[in-house]
């Protein structure tokens, strides 16, 4: 037996035993690469995800809503940090990760390439987008890679308020004036399909899924999670008195779940490839924020260097 295959065998034993892989453990190169891609995409999504909501902070309809939105966006910055840090344990540095985002080499969740046109979008995002994210993230708390799993435990715990504040916004609008209810319905109409797309391509077309499941990075397939999300969300829409924009949606007694219409994958791939309504705006905003912050990073580095010099002088004096 070659050395690598015996290492690989041991690695798979750890995975099969539901034990965790930690940064200094041997791991297949492809496992490392898959994790770097997934965790960095996840981190980028948290950071870019701040932009569509940031758009409404100054226009929130009350102080309560403004505080909630600020706290949510602040959480997302923190979640980006946890995830970048987990990713760095795999031997890639922060600067490279940011460069991959800024040059468009790395992707982030396509959902953030849609515009936030009305206040109801803050409700729909919290309810649907965070709902879909939670559906994806809860199983990741049991991911085979220790640092990622631990980061996800923190993220999930903190995120529990995000969805509720979104649903609360929807409840208030749905019970409000005719215009408010129409605004809530319009937001649901626009966010429903992109939310379903968040789970990724159908299992039959998903390139990375099989190994990710073998390695217990993922626990459930894209279609399984999407189905669960639909089954969970439709009764929530019913309670709001709102309708999901899918004429083919129907409860299937046999499978104890909903059948739903086909997803427009052309739209999905078009947005992934950079042609969504806001791709350019999001990336430009991110790059601009990074560039505008450069003087702060330079000043901090210069200050640290100066302090170190002062410290050295006082030590040798």
């Amino acid at each position, binding site marked *: 037996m070659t050395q690598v295959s015996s290492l690989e065998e041991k690695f798979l034993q*750890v995975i099969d035993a539901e*034990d*965790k*892989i*930690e940064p*200094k*453990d041997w791991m297949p190169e492809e496992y490392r690469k898959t994790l770097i891609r997934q965790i960095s995409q996840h981190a980028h999504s948290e950071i870019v995800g701040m932009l569509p909501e940031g758009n409404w902070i100054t226009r929130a309809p009350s102080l*309560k809503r403004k*505080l*909630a939105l600020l*706290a949510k966006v602040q*959480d997302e910055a923190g979640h980006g940090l946890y995830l970048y840090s987990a990713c760095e344990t795999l031997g890639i540095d922060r600067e490279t990760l940011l460069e991959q985002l800024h040059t468009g080499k790395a992707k982030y969740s396509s959902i953030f390439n849609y515009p936030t046109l009305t206040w109801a979008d803050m409700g729909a995002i919290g309810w649907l987008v965070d*709902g879909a994210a939670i559906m994806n993230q809860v199983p990741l708390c049991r991911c085979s890679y*220790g640092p990622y*799993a*631990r980061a996800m435990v923190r993220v999930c715990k*903190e995120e*529990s*308020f995000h*969805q*509720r*504040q979104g*649903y*609360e916004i929807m*409840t208030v609008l749905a019970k409000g004036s005719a215009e408010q209810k129409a605004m809530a319905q319009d937001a649901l109409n626009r966010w429903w399909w992109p939310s379903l797309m968040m789970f990724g391509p159908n299992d039959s077309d998903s390139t990375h899924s099989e190994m990710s499941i073998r390695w217990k990075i993922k626990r459930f397939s894209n279609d399984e999670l999407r189905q669960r999300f639909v089954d*969970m969300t439709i*009764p*929530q829409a019913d*309670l709001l008195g709102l309708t999901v924009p899918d004429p083919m949606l129907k409860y299937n007694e046999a499978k104890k779940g909903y059948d739903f219409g086909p997803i427009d994958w052309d739209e999905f791939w078009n947005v992934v490839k950079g042609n969504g309504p806001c791709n350019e705006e999001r990336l430009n905003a991110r790059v601009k924020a990074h560039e505008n912050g450069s003087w702060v990073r330079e000043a901090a580095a210069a200050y640290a260097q100066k302090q170190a010099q002062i410290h050295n002088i006082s030590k040798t004096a």
Partner: protein
Amino acid sequence: MNNNWPLYEVFIRSKNGLSHKHVGSLHASDADMALENARDVYTRRSEGVSIWVVKAADIRASDPGDASFLFEPAADKIYRHPTFYDVPDEVKHM
């Protein structure tokens, strides 16, 4: 010449999947010796699968006197918690 060995703080991971946790400290002439001694002192009964040692002097700790201004502001930010938001009881999975 000062021959006092520096103090190292010792962190042990009890099993893969869990974080390293602070268990105590020891003096050692360098990091390698700290690691060896930590192994002898802190893992005699299978307490760990991984050890970190960090020079105590390299740890910057917050001042207990600052605790109120550091941590009290979080106390009145109840909107960071899920229970702050009204969701009807009939709503499942939230």
